[in-house]
């Protein structure tokens, strides 16, 4: 386990943040076991498809300002997978990046949270990731939006958590150090499709 301390250098490996996020969800909000290890990064974002005993969820961490293209990619991806959730996605976790703290996550008049909260049966959980000036990293539980119309989040105090991060290191393909390797984007989606197929089978019952 790694604990970020004041003075620690910000790191590029966001898997630590995912671990912290999973722990946060498990320990402080949902109380559910969270499946490990389905995350990847690309140029501007980092996402995590996960599963709990109640269902699937998706978390996104944006590393860049919420430009329209990023939001559009999120929306397109959600729509791509939404048909796989006839009952609705169980919940969606959204984590803005560090430099977004003072910026509204919005395009026009609609925020991203609003967009997802309008979708049927989707619970949206939004965290704001905060890095203080002395380097300490924490996650603040900003607001919780459920399927029903949300209460004004400003009325609710925001609990804060110091995040302990850590986990299995994802050594890339390396002959000098063989061992478990990280999954890339295509592989993540392959396994996600398998997970969905199994979940559908379990809902429907045995095929044979």
């Amino acid at each position, binding site marked *: 386990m790694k604990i970020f301390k004041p003075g620690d250098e910000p790191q590029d490996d966001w898997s630590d943040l995912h671990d912290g996020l999973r722990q946060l969800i498990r320990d402080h909000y949902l109380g559910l076991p969270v*499946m*490990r*290890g*389905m995350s990847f990064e690309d140029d501007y974002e980092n996402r995590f498809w996960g*599963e709990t005993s109640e269902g699937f969820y998706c978390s996104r961490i944006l590393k860049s300002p919420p430009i329209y293209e990023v939001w559009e990619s999120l929306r397109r991806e959600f729509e791509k997978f939404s048909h796989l959730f006839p009952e609705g996605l169980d919940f969606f976790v959204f984590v803005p990046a560090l430099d977004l703290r003072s910026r509204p996550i919005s395009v026009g008049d609609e925020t991203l949270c609003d967009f997802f909260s309008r979708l049927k049966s989707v619970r949206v959980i939004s965290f704001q990731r905060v890095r203080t000036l002395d380097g300490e990293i924490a996650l603040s539980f900003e607001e919780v939006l459920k399927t029903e119309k949300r209460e004004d989040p400003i009325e609710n105090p925001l609990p804060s958590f110091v995040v302990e991060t850590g986990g299995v290191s994802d*050594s*890339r*393909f*390396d*002959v*000098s*150090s*063989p*061992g*478990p*390797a*990280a*999954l890339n984007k*295509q*592989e993540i989606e*392959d*396994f996600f*499709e*398998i*997970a969905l*197929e*199994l979940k559908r*089978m*379990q809902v429907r019952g*045995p*095929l*044979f």
Partner: protein
Amino acid sequence: MAPEERRLKRGLGDVSRLFKEKPIPQNEWAVGEFFLKCVAVHRPLSSSARPFILALRRMLIEGGMPAELVRIGGNPLTAHQQETRGDIQDLTWEEFESLNRPSLRKSRGLNEGKQVLIFDFDEGEPEHLKRVLPLMDRWIFAVPPTVDGIIESYRMMKGTRGVVSSSLQYCLVFEGPSGDQGLEEVLFEKFSAVLSQRLGIHLVWLGSAANSEDACRFGDRLDLSHFFLRDTSEIDAFDKQSLFEHLRLLKGVQESFLS
């Protein structure tokens, strides 16, 4: 698709009816031939592969194939393992390394032998993987029939592609109380497809083990006929023969000591 068309081809019996009534083939090895299969077992979501290895060894012996458990860089044995101590061939890493030295290889010619060697070692060390995996003919992944299980298997297969032999055969055993064969078959088919597409790996499904912790119940649905076939692509490394000769010598010393 009709249910019978969805059956997986796990062994010869599923390939053709010609093999339906045929017992485990035992005549694939001819006198004078060197037949040695080196097998490693990976249980990514379990604390130890030892119970699985012991049960596998027992099944192979019952099928007529001599099988030895080779423990490298041994860890402390449990009480149960102490009882079966005689079944285990111990090697230190130094001994194992010495068998791979070129000078030793040169001194040995082809010998005859027939055996399966099942390796037990700490897979958590990259150095160990790097030393042992190149000699392996079979690598068995024993995992629960879950997405988590196949992901962990995939990650290990992907991360060791650079050190394994090109002729290594990957095998899969679903381990756990699933009981849902339909689900297991779908899981295997999809996992196999991903492996083939992404890593170019062909996977053999050996079947399911209800609970390998209990050796008596292990193997009810396992098909090990694959282990009795002579592969043309099998590794014919001098390393393996050195190892085989060393273990044969070691066993001889142990038996003479006990007698």
